[in-house]
């Protein structure tokens, strides 16, 4: 069964986007990316003295994944726009995962700076994937600004707390026409499945895999969870009921 994921004019088979943050070795990265089946991987830029070994890019190139540079760590629209432009220069792509955080304690998005940066980057020709809160109104503003995808958090980055407000994620899904990618907070496979069941088009995660005891195995779990959640969403779950409804008929029950 074909189930194509369209993102910024490109098509993908996988609906799992993998972040590389927290990966412990290049061999693990290689095995994890392959196990995840992902076709899109996020990367960052840092001062060269503090950057990853050059082998990281060789591994990702060998895996054949598309790169999605992020603006992690930026706190103002100005910083994020400059970082996005540096990412475009380094990685030769106009894709950017736009991340503008409000503080280092929560790493929650700063809505005002985020929207400002999104507008500037869209005007500059970027395909903007906006990491945002789970606020459906802000999601709509970002989509209206021309973002290629809206990426609400399930819970704070790296927290592993899962999706704290499933209702908001479902509302956000209804509020925009662009792809919605659940980004941040995923702790385990059931969280990823829930994101897809809520109608998200894809899931972006890093820590849940890279910091798992066995990243390769968790990557496979996430791959299958995303696929299962997507299938369940399409299949249509049964309504929740307050009381039981027998699955075996009562008619013809013998008098014993």
């Amino acid at each position: 069964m074909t189930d194509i994921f369209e993102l910024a004019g490109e098509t993908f088979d996988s609906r799992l986007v993998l972040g590389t943050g927290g990966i412990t070795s290049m061999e693990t990265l290689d095995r994890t990316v392959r196990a995840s089946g992902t076709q899109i991987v996020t990367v960052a830029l840092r001062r060269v003295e503090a950057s990853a070994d050059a082998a990281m890019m060789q591994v990702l190139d060998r895996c054949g994944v598309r790169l999605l540079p992020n603006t992690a760590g930026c706190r103002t629209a100005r910083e994020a726009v400059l970082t996005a432009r540096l990412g475009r220069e380094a990685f030769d792509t106009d894709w950017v995962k736009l991340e503008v955080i409000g503080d280092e304690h929560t790493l929650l998005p700063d809505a005002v700076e985020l929207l400002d940066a999104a507008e500037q980057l869209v005007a500059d020709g970027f395909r903007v994937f906006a990491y945002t809160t789970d606020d459906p109104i802000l999601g709509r503003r970002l989509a209206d600004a021309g973002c290629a995808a809206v990426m609400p958090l399930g819970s704070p980055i790296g927290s592993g707390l899962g999706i704290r407000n499933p209702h908001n994620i479902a509302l956000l899904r209804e509020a925009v026409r662009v792809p919605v990618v659940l980004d941040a907070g995923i702790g385990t496979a059931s969280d990823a499945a829930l994101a897809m069941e809520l109608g998200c088009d894809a899931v972006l995660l890093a820590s849940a895999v890279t910091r798992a005891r066995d990243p390769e195995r968790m990557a496979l779990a996430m791959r299958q969870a995303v696929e299962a959640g997507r299938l369940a969403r399409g299949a249509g779950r049964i309504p929740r009921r307050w009381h039981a409804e027998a699955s075996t008929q009562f008619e013809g029950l013998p008098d014993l």
Partner: protein
Amino acid sequence: MRVNGTAVDVADGTTVAGLVAARTEGHGRVAVARNGDVVPRSTWETTTLAAGDVLEVLAPTAGG
């Protein structure tokens, strides 16, 4: 001038391309900011560093 947060002396006439070559061995994907603006790769050879410049020389790293 400052390069990646550290005060450094650079020979007169050094270009961005020269700075990159000296600092990013092995890295294929590099970006440079000079005084708060991107220096496009196409101008690295022709952009000469000046006293007081603030430069950031960046390379890929893992990120979420």
